[in-house]
C-alpha cells in the first residue's frame, strides 16, 4: 500500500526537524486520539476524553509542544526563531488534523496570539518572559485564544484591508499604567471555558480607521471582569470549544499591549498568514486520513463483484480525490514557504498585500477541494458514508467550518481579486 507520506511535498523546503516532529506527533495521534475520536462528538461539553489527550500533546508531562514558540532561554524550544516556522506549523497542522481538525485548531490557536510577540522579527521579550511560565511549566494543556469576532459585523474584523478596524466595538482605555477593556467577543477558538490567555484586538478610539488606534492587548482569563460563556453546540469540531467572552472594566498592565500604536495593526495583519497556512495544513491532514480510509474501503468493498478501485470509473473518481490531495499538499507547503520567505530578499513581509492575497487564494482553493472531496467520498461509501465508524463523515462535518472561518470564502475571493486586478472599491 502507498502511504500517506507518498503525497508530494516540495522537498527543498522541508525543515531538518520535520521528520522528528512528524514522528512524535504521529505516535501521539495514533495512541491518544485515534482510539477515541469517534466519541468526541458526545464529549463536546465536558471534554472528559479530549482533555487528557491534549495534556499529553501540549503539557510538560507529555510532548510539551505548547512551549515550542518560546525562546529557549525562557524554557521554550525557540521555534519563533526558526527559518522554517511556517513549514513546521504546516507539518504539525497536518499530523494533528489527520486525526481531528478541531483538536488541531484548538492546539495551534494557542500559538496564534503568541506569534505576535514570539516570532522574529517581533519578539517582545518582556511579554515573552511574562507568559513563558504559564505555558512552559504546566503539566496541563494551556490554551490561548485570539478574540476577534464581535456580535455585529461577523468577519469585519478580519477585513482589515477594507475597514481598517472601524467597526471594532471592544474598547481599550488607558488609565494610568493600566488598560481598561470593555467589550463582547464571540466564537473564538479556545473559549467556552478553556482559554487561559486572550489576545484581544480592540480600539482606543471607536470608529477610527487610523491604524494607530488599533490595539492588541493580552488578557489572562483570570483577570477580574473577564467572563467566559459555556461552549456552543455545533455540527462538528467538538474538540474546539467556542463561546461568548465578555470584558467588563478589565484592567491589565499597560505593557500587556503587544507592541504599541501602528505596530499592533501590523502584527495583527501578520497573524492572518499563520491562520491561513494552519487552515491548509488541517485540511491536508484531514484529506490524508480520507485517503487512508478510502483506500481501505475501495480495496475491500465491491461493485460488480470486484473491488471498487478496480472499476475504471470509480478509479477515475477516487483517483481525482487522491490527485487533489496531492495538489493541495503542494499548495499548502508552497503557502507555508511564502510565509517562511518573509525575511528573505526575494520574499515579502507577512503584512504585505501580496502575502495576504496569495494565501487567501490558496486557502480558498484548498477549502473548496476539501469540501468537494469529502462530500464525494461519503457518496463513494454510499450507505456507509454517513456512518461515524467510517471516520469520513466526521471530517466532512468538521472541515466545512474551516471554509467558513476567518471571514469565510467570500472574503478570500475579494482579497485575491483586489490584489490581482487592483480593484479599488470592493
Amino acid at each position, binding site marked *: 500500500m502507498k502511504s500517506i507520506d507518498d503525497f508530494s511535498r516540495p522537498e527543498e523546503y522541508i525543515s531538518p526537524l520535520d521528520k522528528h516532529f512528524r514522528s512524535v506527533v504521529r505516535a501521539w495521534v495514533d495512541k491518544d486520539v485515534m482510539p477515541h475520536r469517534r466519541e468526541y462528538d458526545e464529549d463536546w461539553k465536558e471534554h472528559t476524553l479530549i482533555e487528557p489527550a491534549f495534556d499529553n500533546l501540549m503539557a510538560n508531562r507529555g510532548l510539551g509542544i505548547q512551549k515550542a514558540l518560546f525562546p529557549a532561554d525562557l524554557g521554550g524550544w525557540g521555534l519563533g526563531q526558526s527559518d522554517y516556522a511556517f513549514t513546521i506549523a504546516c507539518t504539525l497542522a497536518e499530523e494533528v488534523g489527520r486525526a481531528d481538525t478541531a483538536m488541531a485548531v484548538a492546539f495551534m490557536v494557542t500559538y496564534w496570539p503568541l506569534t505576535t510577540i514570539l516570532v522574529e522579527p517581533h519578539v517582545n521579550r518582556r511579554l515573552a518572559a511574562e507568559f513563558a511560565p504559564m505555558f512552559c511549566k504546566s503539566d496541563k494543556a494551556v490554551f490561548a485564544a485570539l478574540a476577534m469576532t464581535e456580535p455585529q459585523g461577523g468577519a469585519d474584523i478580519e477585513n482589515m484591508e477594507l475597514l481598517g478596524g472601524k467597526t471594532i466595538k471592544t474598547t481599550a482605555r488607558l488609565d494610568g499604567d493600566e488598560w481598561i477593556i470593555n467589550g463582547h467577543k464571540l466564537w473564538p477558538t479556545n473559549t467556552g471555558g478553556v482559554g487561559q490567555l486572550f489576545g484581544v484586538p480592540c480600539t482606543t478610539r471607536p470608529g477610527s480607521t487610523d491604524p494607530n488606534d488599533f490595539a492588541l492587548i493580552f488578557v489572562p482569563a483570570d483577570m477580574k471582569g473577564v467572563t467566559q460563556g459555556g461552549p456552543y453546540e455545533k*455540527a462538528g469540531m467538538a474538540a474546539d470549544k467556542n463561546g461568548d467572552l465578555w470584558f467588563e472594566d478589565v484592567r491589565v498592565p499597560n505593557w500587556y499591549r503587544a507592541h504599541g500604536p501602528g505596530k499592533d495593526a501590523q502584527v495583527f495583519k501578520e497573524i492572518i498568514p499563520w491562520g491561513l497556512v494552519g487552515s491548509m495544513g488541517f485540511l491536508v491532514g484531514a484529506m490524508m486520513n480520507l485517503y487512508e480510509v478510502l483506500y481501505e474501503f475501495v480495496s475491500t468493498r465491491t461493485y460488480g463483484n470486484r473491488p471498487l478501485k478496480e472499476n475504471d470509473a470509480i478509479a477515475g473518481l477516487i483517483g481525482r480525490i487522491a490527485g487533489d490531495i496531492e495538489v493541495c499538499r503542494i499548495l499548502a507547503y508552497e503557502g507555508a514557504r511564502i510565509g517562511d520567505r518573509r525575511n528573505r530578499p526575494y520574499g515579502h513581509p507577512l503584512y504585505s498585500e501580496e502575502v495576504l492575497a496569495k494565501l487567501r487564494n490558496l486557502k480558498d482553493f484548498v477549502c473548496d477541494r476539501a469540501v468537494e472531496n469529502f*462530500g464525494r467520498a461519503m457518496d463513494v461509501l454510499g*450507505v456507509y458514508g*454517513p456512518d461515524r465508524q467510517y471516520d469520513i463523515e466526521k471530517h466532512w462535518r468538521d472541515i466545512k467550518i474551516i471554509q467558513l472561518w476567518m471571514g469565510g470564502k467570500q472574503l478570500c475571493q*475579494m482579497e485575491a481579486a483586489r490584489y490581482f486586478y487592483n480593484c479599488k472599491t470592493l
Partner: protein
Amino acid sequence: MHKPLDGLFLSTREHIDEEEQRIVNTVRQWADREILAKRLTYLEHYEQEFAGKRGMLLMEIGLQRLALSEENGGFGWNSKASAPCLAAVLMEIGRADAATAYMSALQFTTILASGADGTSPIDTLISRFYSTDKPVNPALILPGPGSQDEQTPLFFGRSINARLVHEGDSAILFGKNMRPAGCGALADHFCVVCADSAGKPWIAFVPADAQGIQRGNILQETGLNACANADITFQHVRLPREATLEGKETVEGLYLWLNLFLGATSVGAAMNFFEIVYDWANTRTIKGGSLMKENPLCASVLADVAEEIAIARFLTDDLARLIAMTASPNGPELQNVYTFAQIVGYRVQQGAMRAVNRGLELMGSAGYAREWHAEKHWRDIKTIQSYLCGVGAEVPVKMDTARFFFDCREI
C-alpha cells in the same frame, strides 16, 4: 420569511386537482404550525415532542394511508398518476423535517413499488400492515456495496446481499449484517431487494417481528437522526410467498419511486433552507453596514442557492410527470424512465446539496451552530444523498446512463 414559496419557485405541475391541492395545503399548515413555529423547542426536547407531531401527520391527517388503494382502505393515491401529488406532499413534509419526510418516502416507495393495485396479495398484505393506528416505521435494504470475499448476484453492478429461497408457499430470507438506507434500528418492516438462487432479483416485504431477524447496535450517523439505523441480519426468516415480488422490472420500479420521493424530500428541506438564508441575508450586514443581500458577490451566492433549488424542483416535477405519463398507453417505457429517474434523482440531490453548501458559506458560524437549524438540513440532505448513491457515488447511475444511451453491454 413572509413570502409564499410557490410564488417564487415556479412549477409546471398541471396534474394536481383541487382536492389533491387541499391535502398538500393541509400538510403545509401542519409544517408551519406544528414544526417550523416551534423549532427551537424541539432542539432541546426532540424525543418527547417531535414523535407526536409525526403521529398527527400520519394518523390525524392520514398520510399513512395516502398511497394505499381505495379498495384496501386508503386515499387512493396509489397509481402512477399520483406521482406529482405524492411528490408535492413530500416536499411539504421535507420542508418541516427531512427525517419525517424520509420515512414517508420509504412508506410510499414500499407501497408503490409493490404494485399498489388494490387487488394483488402483496398489496393487501402491505395495506393491512399500514392500516394501523400507530406510525409505521419502514426500512429499505437495497442493492449496494459487496464485499471482497464474496460473489453476489447483481442489480446492474450493485450487490444484492439478501438471498431468497422459495419453499412451497413460503419464502425464506437470508442475509448477514446488511446496511439499510436508514431506519434499521426502529423499522416495523423491511422492504428488501433480494435474489433467488438463479440470481434473479426480487422484492420481499418483511415484518420486523418475523422470526430470525437480528439488529446490530444503533449507528451514529450524519443526519436523519430520527431514522435511527442499525445493521440487519436475516437468519432463515420465513415469509408467506405472497410477500415477495419477482423481477428486475420490479426493482427498477422501486428505484424509480425512490428517486422521485427522495428528490421531493430533499427539495422540501432545501426550500426551508432557502427560507433560513432569506432571513439571514435580509438582516445581516457586512463591510461595516450594508445588507448582505446587496453585496453583488453575496447576491451571486444567494442566486446559486435559489437557482439550484429551482432547478432541482423543476427536475423533480419533470420526473413526477414522466412517471405519470407511463400510466398512459403511449407513455414511455420503463427502462427509459428508470434511466431518467436515476439521472434526475442524483442530480436533484447534488443540486440540493450544492444549494446548502453555498448558503452556508454566507452564514459563517451561524451556519454551523445547531441553533440556526441550517446545519440540520445540511446533514440530512447529505445523508439522503449518500444513502441513495448506495456505493461508488454516482458511478452506478453513470453506468446505467451509458448502458441505456450507448448500448453498453459489459459495464
